């Protein structure tokens, strides 16, 4: 067993864990943060994407040991009780989700994309979405949602 300390959505957590524990399973099983969805468990589907030290990471492809001392943001951090994040609001308004399984990972990737590039083209958004599998929407409403959120965030 090893000691790890991570900050998740602004709260510090210390745990004794097996070295083989994945970050995705740590978030869900140890911290009960079920917003991070686990799909393929080998880095292909993108559902488990979180921000690790400010950058997107597949939480199924990181040992929690590798994140020791790090800062993690999950989808739970996007909105407060009062209002949805502009990205979430745009997904709601533009039908950017149906079953919602892929949505947390896509929101996290979109958040990073808009931080890096506040005015992305449709092509740039589609290139980013290549790292996320959605089997419901056909992607068009997701692209619309991200374009709309980008416009809102630019003000």
């Amino acid at each position, binding site marked *: 067993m*090893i000691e790890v300390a991570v900050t998740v959505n602004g709260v510090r957590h210390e745990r004794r864990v*097996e*070295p*083989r*524990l*994945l970050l995705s*399973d740590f978030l869900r099983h140890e911290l009960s943060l079920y917003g991070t969805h686990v799909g393929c*468990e*080998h*880095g292909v589907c*993108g559902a488990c*994407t979180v921000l*690790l030290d400010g*950058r*997107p*990471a*597949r939480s*199924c*492809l*990181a*040992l929690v*040991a*590798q994140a*020791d001392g790090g800062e993690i943001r999950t989808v739970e951090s996007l909105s407060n009780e009062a209002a949805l994040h502009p990205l979430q609001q745009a997904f709601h308004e533009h039908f950017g989700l149906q079953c919602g399984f892929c949505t947390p990972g896509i929101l996290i*990737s979109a958040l*990073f*994309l808009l931080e890096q590039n506040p005015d992305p083209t449709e092509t740039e958004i589609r*290139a*980013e979405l*290549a*790292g996320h599998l959605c089997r419901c929407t056909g992607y068009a409403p997701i692209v619309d949602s991200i374009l709309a959120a980008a416009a809102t965030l630019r003000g």
Partner: protein
Amino acid sequence: MKPAPFEYFRPTSVEEAVALLAEHEDAKPLAGGQSLVPMLNFRLARPAALVDLGGIDELAGIRVDDGALVVGAMTRQWDLEHSPEALPLLREALAHVGHTATRCRGTVGGSLVHADPTAELPVCALALGAELVTSRRRIPAEEFFLSVFTTALDPDELLVEIRFPTPVGPTAFLEHSHRHGDFAVVCVARSGERIAVGGVGPTPVLWDGGAIDPVGDLFAPAGYKRDVARALLEQAAAA
């Protein structure tokens, strides 16, 4: 819990890491984990110990030295892609390596050492005539890739940095994959007169100007790969 159990070490220097690798039979270095962790999750790899290189600060960084771009083995692919120092050829190639989330974690050295025959960075290293500096020697790219997932590194030898010489003449990177971010069917890198091809055999190869005789796979039979390789090589030669 997906991976089989292993002992875990997080050294803070190259010397310490090399000593741990020598001491523990069947220990594997862990770089960004974007290829190794999927193999652990599938239990295709069951190392007795992992030596996590993430705590070795001296292994990451980008600098220009004596006309060469020198990239630390643990430099994240995303950092090289967005570095003003990066060669245009490397930047173009990196855009094809997985996705943003995997490039933010995946390392330049990890990709080279993993030696996937379809991977972009080994093809660039070969085209550029890069030199791979290890914990004990310098290995030219031509002698580094031995077979599928197999390099000239000894089990207790670490890749420390990669020296990419500045290209003389035109450069180009071309790739065909089934979907953006997938493994390449064929990819081609050109630096001046050197053109390297990936995806056609167990290692990337330097093109001698002749016919390519690829090894087919489940999703791309040999004849299809031959046609794709020919088309990409023509485009690279005309660049």
